[in-house]
């Protein structure tokens, strides 16, 4: 007998999925515009909020979109669009998606997008540069969230039973660690960008001609005396110099961690496995990101390059995060002891990125006890299967039949 939990997965809804994808893409563009705002030092070019120079946001005359106002005002407009898209997506999920975790993620996205808007507004109203760090960091988290929604509504996610990506625990934790490193690196980056002091170190690969720069008071005074910035004219501090050095070392650590993850995926999963391909793509992103970081220094923080650095950073973070979402959704193998225990599906579900499972009493009989060779995975006897698109769960026995858990 095969069991299916009708409530545990939603049917694929292409409209909803494409809408979620659209929200993710517009969010990515919003990240780019936000990056341009900071790169062009335009964050305070519109002194009021939520109005724009006294006008309603949507009625501000195009003729006045000049200089820094262009970046800040279009950022606000696009942010409004993302807010509306997010609310619409959350309502859609709430009404049509039977998965509780998806509905909750949609609600969380609404809370986060509202918080983001308020943070951005308070940064303007309170004249607090440091709030920009939180604004930039929360933006990255929001991007992960909407990408996860797009993934969760995809046909692939709802029908991965046939080729379920799996990874050993060691690899999963390695990738998760690298992803956390990237997140920390992005916080460092946001902190540097919101100092409004330009580049704290202007040369690469050395730093003020040394492997580790002199950060004595006299040295910093000399650096400031020599700096001739046209914009971002705040003087630099020793702390900012150290921050950039940590950012450089962080980039190296991330490169090693991601390369190790990709290499391990290659060895353990094979070159054709989806997670290996994703890890390889992720490594390419990291290499591009490092190149952009170097270019940011060598171009004296040219606005376009610095903004690309922000965007590829966001893609790097979301690539790692989604890799983890996919890989942690289901462990590579479940210890046989787990099988057969009442409610084991809940345990699996609890380790599977919020996959909603219920007690066996909720399960509905919907098929036969054929092993999941077409709709599920195949493998050695004793291996445990959990097929989310049909919520089949059980242990494959020696004869190839699947002992389904009740």
């Amino acid at each position, binding site marked *: 007998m095969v069991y299916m939990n009708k409530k545990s997965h939603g049917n694929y809804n292409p409209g909803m999925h494409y809408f979620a994808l659209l929200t993710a893409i517009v969010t990515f563009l919003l990240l780019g515009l936000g990056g341009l705002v900071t790169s*062009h*030092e*335009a*964050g*305070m*070019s*519109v*002194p*009021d909020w939520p109005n724009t*120079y006294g006008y309603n946001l949507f009625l501000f005359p195009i003729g*006045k979109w*000049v*200089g*820094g*106002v262009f970046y*800040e005002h279009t950022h606000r407009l696009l942010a409004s669009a993302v807010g509306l898209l997010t609310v619409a997506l959350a309502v859609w999920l709430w009404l049509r998606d039977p998965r509780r975790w998806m509905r909750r993620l949609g609600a969380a996205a609404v809370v986060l997008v509202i918080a983001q808007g308020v943070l951005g507004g308070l940064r*303007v109203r309170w*004249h607090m540069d440091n709030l920009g760090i939180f604004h930039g960091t929360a933006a990255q988290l929001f991007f992960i969230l909407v990408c996860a929604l797009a993934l969760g509504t995809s046909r692939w996610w709802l029908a991965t039973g046939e080729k379920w990506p799996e990874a050993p625990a060691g690899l999963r934790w390695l990738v998760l660690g690298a992803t956390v490193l990237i997140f920390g690196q992005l916080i460092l980056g946001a902190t540097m960008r919101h100092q409004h002091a330009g580049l704290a170190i202007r040369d690469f690969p050395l730093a003020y001609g040394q492997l580790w720069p002199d950060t004595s008071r006299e040295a910093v*005074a*000399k650096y*400031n*005396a*020599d*700096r*001739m910035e*046209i*914009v*971002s*004219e*705040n003087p630099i501090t020793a702390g900012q110099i150290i921050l950039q050095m940590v950012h450089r070392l962080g980039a190296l650590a991330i490169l090693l961690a991601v390369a190790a993850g990709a290499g391990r995926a290659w060895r353990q999963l094979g070159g054709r496995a989806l997670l290996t391909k994703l890890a390889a793509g992720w490594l390419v992103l990291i290499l591009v990101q490092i190149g952009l970081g170097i270019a940011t220094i060598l171009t004296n923080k040219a606005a376009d390059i610095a903004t690309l650095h922000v965007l590829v950073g966001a893609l790097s973070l979301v690539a790692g995060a989604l890799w983890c979402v996919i890989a942690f959704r289901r462990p590579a193998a479940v210890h046989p002891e787990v099988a057969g225990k009442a409610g084991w599906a809940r345990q699996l579900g609890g380790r599977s990125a919020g996959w909603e499972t219920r007690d066996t009493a909720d399960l509905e009989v919907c098929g036969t006890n054929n092993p999941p060779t077409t709709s599920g995975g195949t493998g050695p006897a004793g291996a445990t299967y959990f097929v989310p698109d049909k919520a089949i769960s059980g242990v494959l026995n020696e004869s190839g039949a699947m002992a389904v858990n009740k």
Partner: protein
Amino acid sequence: MNKILLLLAVGAGAGQWASAADIIGTVTYKGTPPPEKEITPILNDPTCAAMYDGKAPTTHFYRVGANGEFGDVIVSLKGVTGSTGASAPAALLDQKGCLYTPTILVVQTGQKLIVKNSDPVLHNVHLNPTAPENEKANDALINAAQMPNGADLTYTFVKPEKFMKFQCDVHPWMFAWVTIEDSPYYCLSGVDGKFVIKNVPPGKYTIEAAHRKAGAVTQEVEVKDTDATVNFTFEAK
């Protein structure tokens, strides 16, 4: 009675004037300052670019003459209070040619600072006080829009502060640096490097010369009943 008081006050003032002296001197920069940069982004804004005929203006971080005369250095007596700012004429900071003019300015606490927009383009006047009292005193105008030919903005500061940044975020290359002194005993060195601090009462003082990029140096000076001379030299780092 009132007449007696008036006479006493005039006498006291005259006595102070008679015994006060000036501190005069020159500020010199030894060495070659870093080269100034062309403000090329100004050409990307059509309205601003129209005022420059295709040639971008340059920064003026180091105003150094052929013989090392060092301008835009603030020379002041440290630790001296007694602002006369309330009765001093207002200082003017203009936005002209999509630049702040002047870029270095000194006012006293209590003195009015008028910010004007002479440009045919919108600017936002965004100041960045480090003293909370100065922020509070100008809370409504910390980041204020100023339309072309818009009304002047008036600021008053209550705490001394060095090099408070004024900026325009619409045109992010626009900066001015306003220093607030708590006494009238200061002077901004001219393009000839010369300065005069007038009517300093007799006494021993620490005199400071501060440049936004080159840093600050101090000396001790004693003022008697004749002018005192103090010269400063900044060396390229």
